[in-house]
């Protein structure tokens, strides 16, 4: 099945008078397969929202090709927009309109049946607040309303920018179930950009991580995490006084790097955990604990985008540490 979204070599440069041009997108590539919840991750200023805006025809691009459902956009966007529901950045509405009126006006503009309004209000959990004016809505309620409007058209592709923003834990759980239901039971494709990495880890089947307007890695979430887990082993001893001796034993026995901490060693590059045990035992050193460092998405994200905090240095928007390493998934 061809990808629902294909982006190739996308470039967007902002020219400013008396300032250096800023490349918001620098040859971005991305593919989103059908029927999946796809996460779109990146640090602030990495080009996520710019990409979504370009896909939806809100901004022009300087180079590259974008296709949705095989149709080149933005030229053919009017032909496929009926199959797309989208929310870009924080949802905005007329404050004095009620939630229901907001949806009714949008439904009316595309000839959608009025009954659909109540269906989506029910789906996002806003049925009881639909008669209130939007100015009384919390951020989370506005977020639900935004998702409701995106669902009005029964979209085959749902594009959501930070959908969990402002939602309480119950709301996040509800949203996750809704989006997974849409993708896995209804066959819709969901593209979600988010900063809530743990949420993406739980919600998404696949993901693309971008930094400085370029793709860093993409693939199935499980594969990306697996590629970055298990490569580091934590080793503890009953007697911390023998840590130096253990470092020498491991380094001399194989091509591994060992980082010594006051109470443990972190071993990277070992072929398997048993090799560490055997090597240390051969040297007369008996470990008390051997564990595999399991990384979560946050640590993988920080590592891939080079935005892990460093002592005394703030990470600037759109910047990353120069030495970026990547492993697992489809690295670019």
């Amino acid at each position, binding site marked *: 099945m061809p990808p629902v979204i294909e982006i190739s070599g996308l470039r967007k440069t902002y020219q400013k008078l008396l300032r250096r041009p800023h490349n918001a997108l620098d040859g971005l590539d991305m593919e989103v397969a059908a029927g999946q919840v796809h996460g779109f991750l990146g640090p602030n200023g990495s080009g996520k929202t710019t990409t979504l*805006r370009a896909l939806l025809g*809100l901004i022009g691009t300087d180079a590259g090709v974008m296709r949705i459902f095989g149709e080149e956009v933005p030229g053919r*966007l009017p032909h496929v*927009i009926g199959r797309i529901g989208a929310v870009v950045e924080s949802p905005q509405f*007329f*404050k004095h309109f009620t939630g229901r009126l907001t949806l009714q*006006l949008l439904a009316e*503009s595309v000839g959608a049946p009025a009954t659909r309004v109540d269906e989506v209000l029910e789906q996002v959990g806003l049925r009881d607040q639909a008669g209130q004016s939007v100015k009384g809505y919390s951020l989370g309620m506005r977020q639900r309303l935004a998702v409701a*409007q995106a669902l009005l058209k029964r979209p085959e592709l749902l594009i959501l920018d930070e959908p969990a923003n402002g939602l309480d834990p119950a709301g996040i759980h509800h949203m996750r179930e809704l989006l997974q239901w849409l993708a896995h039971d209804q066959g819709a494709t969901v593209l979600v950009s988010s900063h809530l990495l743990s949420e993406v880890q739980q919600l998404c089947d696949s993901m693309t991580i971008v930094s400085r307007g370029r793709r860093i890695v993409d693939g199935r979430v499980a594969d990306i995490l697996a590629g970055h887990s298990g490569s580091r082993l934590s080793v503890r001893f009953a007697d911390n006084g023998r840590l130096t001796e253990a470092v020498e034993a491991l380094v001399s026995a194989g091509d591994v790097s060992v980082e010594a901490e006051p109470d443990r060693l972190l071993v990277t590059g070992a072929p398997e955990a048993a090799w560490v045990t055997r090597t240390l035992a051969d040297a007369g050193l008996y470990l008390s604990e051997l564990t595999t460092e399991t990384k979560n998405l946050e640590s993988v994200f920080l590592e891939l985008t080079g935005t892990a905090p460093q002592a005394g240095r703030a990470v600037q928007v759109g910047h990353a540490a120069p030495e970026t390493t990547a492993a697992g998934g489809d690295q670019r």
Partner: protein
Amino acid sequence: MNLFKTELHRLLRRRLSLLFGIVAVSGLVLLSVVLWFNSESEVSSAEQAYGEEQAAVYQAELDRCKADEGYFTDERNWGYDVGEDYPELSHAEVCDEMLSWGTDPSDHYMVYIFDFSAEGVWMLVGIAIVGGLLVMLLTASAIGAEWSSGNMANLLVWHPNRLRVWGAKLAASLTLGAVALVAMLLLGFGLLYLVAATSGQVGELDGRWWEESLAILGRTVVMGLGMTVLGAALAMLGRHTAIAGGVIAGYLIIGDLLVRLAGFAFNVKYPDLFSLYTWVGAWISGEMTLFANVMSANGEFEDQMILTATDAGLLLGAILALFAGLATWSFAKRDVT
């Protein structure tokens, strides 16, 4: 069609629409009430006697002028031959020109009688202009609010064909504007006619009156619709209500004064040509005479120029087309961020 209906619906559901509607109706009622209290339906007998007495004095002076060829050169009167300024008129006609005011008793009445046939149409013109300003502000506010709230981006995610969106917004604004202006004029006509019938005089509303009045009011409504398009275009260009309002108010208050002063400073023959009000006046009234900025030795303007409604329509239409074109280009090409 769906989008047009939605835009119309959105405009009607705005609180500002309701507020402006209330302001417009209240203003019309207030004007009528004030007019009703200030106008008299007939002149009292004492006022009439005073008017006739004064008119007789003025008539006697006019008769004296006509009987005396040397009336104007007499030092006790004007002291110079006024007839030289009117070489095409006879002496009696010059007397009429100079001294006929006051010979009618009504010239001396101290009461105000609202005459619908004479004043009604210009009051309705004023009502239509105020209505046009309200519709212009309403349209600029609706589009400006969509931009400043971010709702425009939301709408374009639903309807990516920007020209279609712009067309629907303009069509909805013009439809609302046309209905609102015609409704205001009908209500204004009814109220003013009622005031004239009960506390003034209706006058003669013959075929010519209707023809001239409908032409003037028709052009005023067209101008109101043009103001609607201008408000929408400025809000689309500035992407904020305040920018549109600021440009309009700034030009009308300061800009027009500055260009007019510049016209005088550079000794332009017809400085009034630089004022937008001149062209608006010519458009509404159908014709306007401009006098050259040069006077003869006897204080007369040497030259004059006539602006017709067609001249004014062409210029005002060109200005409107320029702004509408810029707004269309801007909306079609600029990023929505």
